[in-house]
């Protein structure tokens, strides 16, 4: 019986010590609300770009008519551009992107063509193209 209690005591001390140990450590880490907001924005941008790709695919296989495609593509692209602009303005390098000079369009095209390149590589090379990139 004593062995049981001793063994339990040892395991208990180890478990409790392991659990409370972080409470006595001094760590300066804190969750940055900026980091979280940026992660949210990047997710939204990713969703918007994915939606553009889905729309293009649906159009290609005949599920979306030309008129609807033009309209929805415009809406999705402007949403993606707004997000890219927002991300660049608040979290970018500071150089900024000027909507008037068409840099925003370029940035969006870079993002979309990046996804198309992966799609092309996916057919026969798997992720090799992605890793090389």
């Amino acid at each position, binding site marked *: 019986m004593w062995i*049981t209690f001793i063994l*339990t005591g040892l*395991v*208990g001390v180890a*478990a409790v010590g392991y*659990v*409370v*140990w*972080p*409470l006595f*450590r*001094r*760590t*300066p880490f*804190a*969750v940055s*609300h900026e*980091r*979280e907001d*940026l*992660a*949210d*924005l*990047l*997710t*939204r941008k*990713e*969703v918007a770009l994915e*939606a553009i790709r*889905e*729309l293009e*695919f649906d*159009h*290609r*296989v*005949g*599920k*979306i*008519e030309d008129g*609807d495609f033009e309209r*929805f593509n415009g809406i999705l692209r402007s949403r993606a551009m707004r997000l890219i602009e927002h*991300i660049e303005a608040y*979290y*970018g*390098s500071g150089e900024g992107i000027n909507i008037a000079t068409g840099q925003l369009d370029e*940035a969006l095209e*870079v*993002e979309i063509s*990046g996804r198309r*390149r*992966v*799609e*092309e590589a*996916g*057919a*026969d090379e*798997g*992720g090799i*193209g992605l890793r090389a*990139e």
Partner: protein
Amino acid sequence: MIFDFGYLTLVLALAVCAFGMAAGYWGGMLETRGTATAATVSRKGGPSGGPLTASLSHRLTESSFHSIYAVSVLVGIAAVILWYGLLTDQFQISYIWNSSERSLPAFYKFAAIWGGQAGSLLFWTLLLGLFSTAAALTFRDSQRTLMPYVNGTLLATLLFFLVLLVFSANPFEQIGVVPSDGRGLNPLLQNYWMVIHPVMLYLGWVGLSVPFAFAVAALMSKRLDRRWVRTVRRWTLIPWMFLSAGIIMGSQWAYMELGWGGYWAWDPVENASFLPWLTATAFLHSVIIQEQRGILKVWNVTLIWLTFTLVILGTFTTRSGILSSVHSFAQSPVGPYFLVFLAVTTIGFLLLLYQRMPYLQGENEIDSISSREGAFLANNWLFAGIAFVVLWGTFYPMFSEILTGERISVAAPWFNRVAGPLFLLLFVLMGVGPLLGWRRTGAKALRRQFTWPVAVALASVPFLLITSRNVFPVVGFSVCIFVAATIVQEFARGTIARMRSRGETAAAALWGVMRRNGRRYGGYVIHFGIVLIGVAIIGNEFYQSTTHVTLSAGQSVELSGYTLTYTGLGSEQRSNHTEVRANLSVSDTASGRFLGQIAPRRNIYDKTPDQPTSEVGLRMTPAEDVYVILNGWEGDGRSATFTVYVNPLTMWMWVGGLLVVLGTVVSVWPHPRPARAGREAASAFPEGARAGQAAA
């Protein structure tokens, strides 16, 4: 001694769990408050954040992570000790005495941990600990605002099961004497499907706690954007796959072991596993709408809460014995604990949901009903409707007994009559949905998409009418053909579009579309599996033939073109039972060609000779199964009584189940992602988003 230690590790795990849960929630609340304050201060231009609060919150969160790991290890130690006891016949432990015996094969001794109540609760807790550890390790850095609450919620669920194990269903309870042998495992559980089927179900049920924990975390932290739904999608699909596999394996077990000619009887415990499957399936469809369009936020958190509640309710019905069925072999006083836990989670969740309603406003509206989101929404209503019907039918006998004192049972025909038409509509939507694009599909596109699948389905009707004059199977089969045609068309169109745009061969293009659009095409594979399951159900429901016959040695019976000749009875002694086997030869009635032997059995267990189990004799082909049950015999087997079934198309149910698993693997398989633009890749910030995407 070792078993006392096993129990004390559970007590220790309980204490650590309670502390970790409090640390997780407290840390999360401090973090949420800190973030809100920082945001306000930042807007006003002052210095941001409170370092002391942030540091405390971080330390508490870290402690909750450590608690999850520690609880998993402690529960793991307890489980290993119980396994040791089972494998070494420690019958002084009440659970082992009740669930095992010396002559039980080691295979079943190992499986006996989930063969009774206390052991299965310990096994459940172990799996939940492992799932919680996996989630904690995966999202530790990427979901910093959600993880404290996720940890808190997972630890709260673990705490509930540990309370059960410590106070109500102690698997290490000792008898006081050492019996020479155990009472043996329930004979019905001594079947290879019963070894794997509960594990699959538990993996499914337990795994669904993780998306629920994320939903609670999103509500508590007020971060109800699209990130949490992208994060949990894969973590819902994988448990959903296990649950689907568990349900199919359970059907296989019922088909082979229970010996009543079918695989699904709408038994309350079967329904208990099916209910969360229905709501989880609805959730898997509706999260896609939230992700794509930013709508149905309230519905999604409600669905995942319902799924979690139905999982707990399912365990409650299985374990409390409140609804009598073949599965309710373990009745014990755990019922009140489950009821309290269900009440607390329900009230807590609904209050939280009510408080967070302002954060759950939709970002868009549905543009058109002829869109994929429109079809998904209708599919969600149907899933919810079927879940309500099944829930009502399952619990009606209990309510009738409480209210009137008379138990009115609801049998399979009622479920088939009420849920059947809803399933048919669901199948129609399963065909319609993939043909529609997001947002709006115009009339011209609708014509283009629907022409071939509808034509193929209509063309099949005259052929189907030859097989049956009954309208229901004809409609059912033609709907299945329509859905299958839409899936084939989807694969063909995607492949052709890629061949044209990239000049690839058909095989390369097919591989390309599946690899690049794994989620979409994996979904189609799952749909095709469901179609096959539907085909098997219709075949069995409407074309099954049966006869009940007593045959003397050498006598034959004819059924649906088969002649079965009884050739005699034999018996064989196994480690803990005697197998009595009837031999029948099967031949084609028309040509007289010999097709094979069938040997239905009765297993008479040494410990429970009054409960012989049935092992059916089966000849399985893609067209139909010849399925024979040995009901009894006279003398040394001069004559024997059989029930013979010819079950058309049943094999497709198991093939369909395999396709469901395969399709899920295709869906969750990571597909290539574009490299990030240099600045994003270099930034320390986007970690969270990256993991969110990876998890999606």
